[in-house]
């Protein structure tokens, strides 16, 4: 409770500010409507109306919550194509689109993490890689992913790869970087004394890696994984924009095509909730593993 109180206070303040902002943001449309009808609009009517527009500039929080509820639970339980009636997830529901995004995110995260760890191992153990890889890794992250994503999709499509994999590769492209940076630091975490100690036992490089470097790098790895999994989600959503085969990215884009601001915000919140859950799960595993290893600090 002592921990949640400050958080809840901040959330309450943000929601209050949001509601306050809704009134001026949506007021213009109400004034236009009123003047077109040739009548004056009172303040209380204005406030009430700005909170209930169908296509507001800025939807009110409760509209987003209702949309989230409608496009998940309600859609799946009562919708014609919902899970309850058809046995499969509805393509109008955020659960379906969230699942599409989640699978690509997880595949991309696994590829990115694996690739990042391999690169870090190479950088730490190979002088040539140490001197050459990092500048390229940094350069790769300076290219706007929104520009790169369509090219990756087009190139992969031309060699017959489409669907999940191109999105996962874009996700991996964003998530490998924090893992490389973190793991290089982590694998170099053993101090001079620990390395000397290994030398006194004439331990070969592979043994030093498995018994000392890798365990020592765990706190760094988990810190990187938390950044990496959120980056993978962003990459997946960006990868979904040009493909239009489902996913939260599709919901975001179609929402903006048709001016469905409430739908955009609901999809945004679904993405945020998904990201927070993924980071939370990684954090939970982190706490367990590090406490077990005596590395929790």
């Amino acid at each position, binding site marked *: 409770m002592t921990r949640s109180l400050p958080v809840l206070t901040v959330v309450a303040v943000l929601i209050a500010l949001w509601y306050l902002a809704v009134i001026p943001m949506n007021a213009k449309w109400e004034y236009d409507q009123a003047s077109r009808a040739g009548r004056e609009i009172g303040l209380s009517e204005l406030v009430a109306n700005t909170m209930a527009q169908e296509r507001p500039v800025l939807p009110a929080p409760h509209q987003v919550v209702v949309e989230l509820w409608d496009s998940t639970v309600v859609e799946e339980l009562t919708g014609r194509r919902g899970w309850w009636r058809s046995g499969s997830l509805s393509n109008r529901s955020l659960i379906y689109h969230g699942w599409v995004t989640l699978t690509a995110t997880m595949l991309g995260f696994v590829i990115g993490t694996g690739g990042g760890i391999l690169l870090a191992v190479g950088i730490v153990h190979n002088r040539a890689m140490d001197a050459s890889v990092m500048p390229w890794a940094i350069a790769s992250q300076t290219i706007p992913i929104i520009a790169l994503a369509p090219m990756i999709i087009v190139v992969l499509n031309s060699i017959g790869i489409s669907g999940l994999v191109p999105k996962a590769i874009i996700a991996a492209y964003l998530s490998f970087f924090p893992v490389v940076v973190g793991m290089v630091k982590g694998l170099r975490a053993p101090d001079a004394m620990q390395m000397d*100690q290994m030398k006194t036992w004439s331990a070969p490089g592979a043994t030093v890696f498995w018994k000392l470097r890798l365990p020592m790098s765990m706190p760094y790895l988990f810190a990187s994984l938390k950044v990496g999994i959120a980056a993978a989600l962003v990459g997946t959503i960006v990868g979904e924009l040009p493909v239009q085969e489902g996913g939260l990215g599709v919901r975001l884009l179609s929402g903006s095509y048709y001016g469905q601001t409430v739908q955009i915000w609901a999809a945004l919140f679904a993405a945020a909730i998904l990201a927070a859950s993924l980071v939370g799960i990684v954090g939970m595993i982190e706490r367990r593993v590090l406490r077990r290893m*005596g590395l929790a600090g």
Partner: protein
Amino acid sequence: MTAVIEARALNLTFSTNDGPVHALKDVNLTIGKGEFVSFIGPSGCGKTTLLRAIADLEHPSSGSLTVNGMSPEAARKARAYGYVFQAAGLYPWRTIAGNVRLPLEIMGYSRAEQDERVARVLELVELAGFEKKFPWQLSGGMQQRASIARALAFDADLLLMDEPFGALDEIVRDRLNEELLKLWARTQKTIGFVTHSIPEAVYLSTKIVVMSPRPGRITDVIDSPLPRERPLDIRDTPEFIAIAHRVREGLRAGHVDD
């Protein structure tokens, strides 16, 4: 008496950004089997460097250095020595037994032999019963005893110790010194021990090597007349005080050129 360590005209120079540093100059030293040798001197006198050169962690610039009649590198690969660092350096993710087992795993001992050796050396440093504890559950003194057990586990005849008790308080230190002497008597090992404490050096050693800095060199080698059996109160005897005095004189002589 066979020589375990033999240094002849040994020089070791580090190149640093401020030019070369003469860490060891013309070091001549013979350490026989079963001796307890302390290296004492102010910081920068090369005592740790000499120990590290013996362990093949530093490479001499000139002169000869042999360990068990071999080059330090060959001796290291033949597992001639166990090395105890200033910090215990136990892995927090391993239990005490797991930490002591680590060099045995690296050296490829069978699981049964590992278990037997871990039990034996933990008994030796009086840590039997702490096998399943993790390092953070032990005091600093106990952690350092575990690190000594780890250095003893693979039966090297030479034990090199670099200020192993330097970070511990004096009461713990006294007790560990006493235990170290018992351990030395039981195991018949040759011990090289770096310290900057005069009482510690005199209490423990059969031979005290006094060193001085800039350049790092040996100024005096004292063969202790004290008996091998040493209760703690031997430190109040005239013989003990006389040796301590000679060590102090040696240290002071080394400072003349400052």
